[in-house]
């Protein structure tokens, strides 16, 4: 007759697979319950996880290493340097524009303007951004496309908080994914960097990429994909298009 299960037999079986990330949902729950029963200070549970973790790490060591791409180290270090409050100070004489231009993450700081009439929205955008060609000139293709966009009813505008003369806003139509990012006097991002716009779908915790941009002589005029229903917009500085932000936002505006 089999004896009673030793207290850690179940934990060991589950941990041995968990360190390989091989557990299904039910077994992961079972492991959580088993560990909870033993408590966070169970020395045997800690020992088992550490030892089997080392076995898993050994499986990784068994592989031949693969060289990282050219510049990988520098890209990582650049991302590290842009982390707020964690990176080392720039070297003396280093010419680096500050990545953080403004960071005010408070409701109502940005202007969330709803239901602006067509004519008013055009005037608003033109007035905010000094974009005279919006007023009906035959300017660039993007300007004409933006003018056509705001000419239809239902346009709403979200303006990011302004600082040092920089102005940035998003014109969108609720229920439609495509919008327009408009800006003036926007400083260039650091060398080999771009700005990226993010939109958070309403009710979600995750930011979705909406498009990257670089100002041309301070002007920003970009068609963006903000999704049909968002409740927060942000701008970060990135090394290129990213699926998720890797740096703290320099602009944020949230629906009231």
């Amino acid at each position, binding site marked *: 007759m089999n004896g009673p299960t030793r207290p850690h037999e179940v934990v060991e079986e589950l941990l041995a697979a968990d360190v390989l990330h*091989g557990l299904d949902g039910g077994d992961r729950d079972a492991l959580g319950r088993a560990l909870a029963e033993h408590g966070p200070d169970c020395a045997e549970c800690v020992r088992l996880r550490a030892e089997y973790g080392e076995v898993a*790490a*050994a499986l990784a060591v*068994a*592989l*031949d290493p*693969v060289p990282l791409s050219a510049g990988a180290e520098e*890209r990582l270090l650049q991302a590290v340097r842009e*982390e707020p409050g964690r990176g*080392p100070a720039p070297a003396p004489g280093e010419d680096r524009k500050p990545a953080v231009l403004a960071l005010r993450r408070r409701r109502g700081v940005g202007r969330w303007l709803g239901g602006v009439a067509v004519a008013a929205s055009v005037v608003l955008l033109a007035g905010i951004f000094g974009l005279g060609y919006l007023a009906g000139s035959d300017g660039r293709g993007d300007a004409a496309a933006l003018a056509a966009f705001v000419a239809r009813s239902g346009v709403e505008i979200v303006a990011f908080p302004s600082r040092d003369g920089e102005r940035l806003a998003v014109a969108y139509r609720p229920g439609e994914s495509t919008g327009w990012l408009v800006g003036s006097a926007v400083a260039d991002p650091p060398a080999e960097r771009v700005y990226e716009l993010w939109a958070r779908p309403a009710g979600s915790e995750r930011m979705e990429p909406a498009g990257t941009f670089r100002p041309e002589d301070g002007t920003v005029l970009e068609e963006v994909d903000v999704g049909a229903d968002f409740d927060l917009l942000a701008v970060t500085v990135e090394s290129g298009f990213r699926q998720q932000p890797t740096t703290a936002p320099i602009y944020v505006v949230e629906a009231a």
Partner: protein
Amino acid sequence: MTRDAVVLGPWPGSRTGTSVAVHSLEDARDRDLVRRVARGDEDAFRDLFRRYGPMAKALALRVVRQAFMAEEIVQEAFLALWRTPGSYREERGTVRNWLFSTVHHRAVDMVRREEALRRRTEHRGPGEAADVAEAVVDEADLRDRRTRVRAALERIPPEQRQVLELMYYEGKTQAAIAADLTLPLGTVKSRTLLGMRRLRSLLSEVEP
């Protein structure tokens, strides 16, 4: 007594102030590097990346099968280390263990979330290079460890090794392996545990 005094082995009255078994000088050095990273030391961070980046990429590449995605995963894992170095807990194992676990977890998550990334290629064992464009500067101690691990893997029964490799290198769950091999789930679980026990025992024999 300096805060960073190194203790080899589970020494009673450890000078580190915690009951931490330091397996080797390599482990002690890695722990010191993480402590320095926590203080914002970029050189320490660079050291860790140079030492473990290529191995981390090999692991991620083995699972996701795309070099670009593998490198993204490695970058994200190391960036996570920079952001929250406190998430590494010394009593839970080596820095190497923690780093590879982070990388592996992200790789497996990606594969399971986006099945389209997985190519149907023939199964590769750990001895085959995944995608080596040029030689990697490989430290002697890691080379030695790699040799010992491969030797240990060869000594566990093939059916146990197969389960471990499918789980770790292919990112499969035990249930998926049971379905793929047309085995009872209990058999897969048993082979997992026995294989890990055997490997743990073999590795402890050969560790210096």
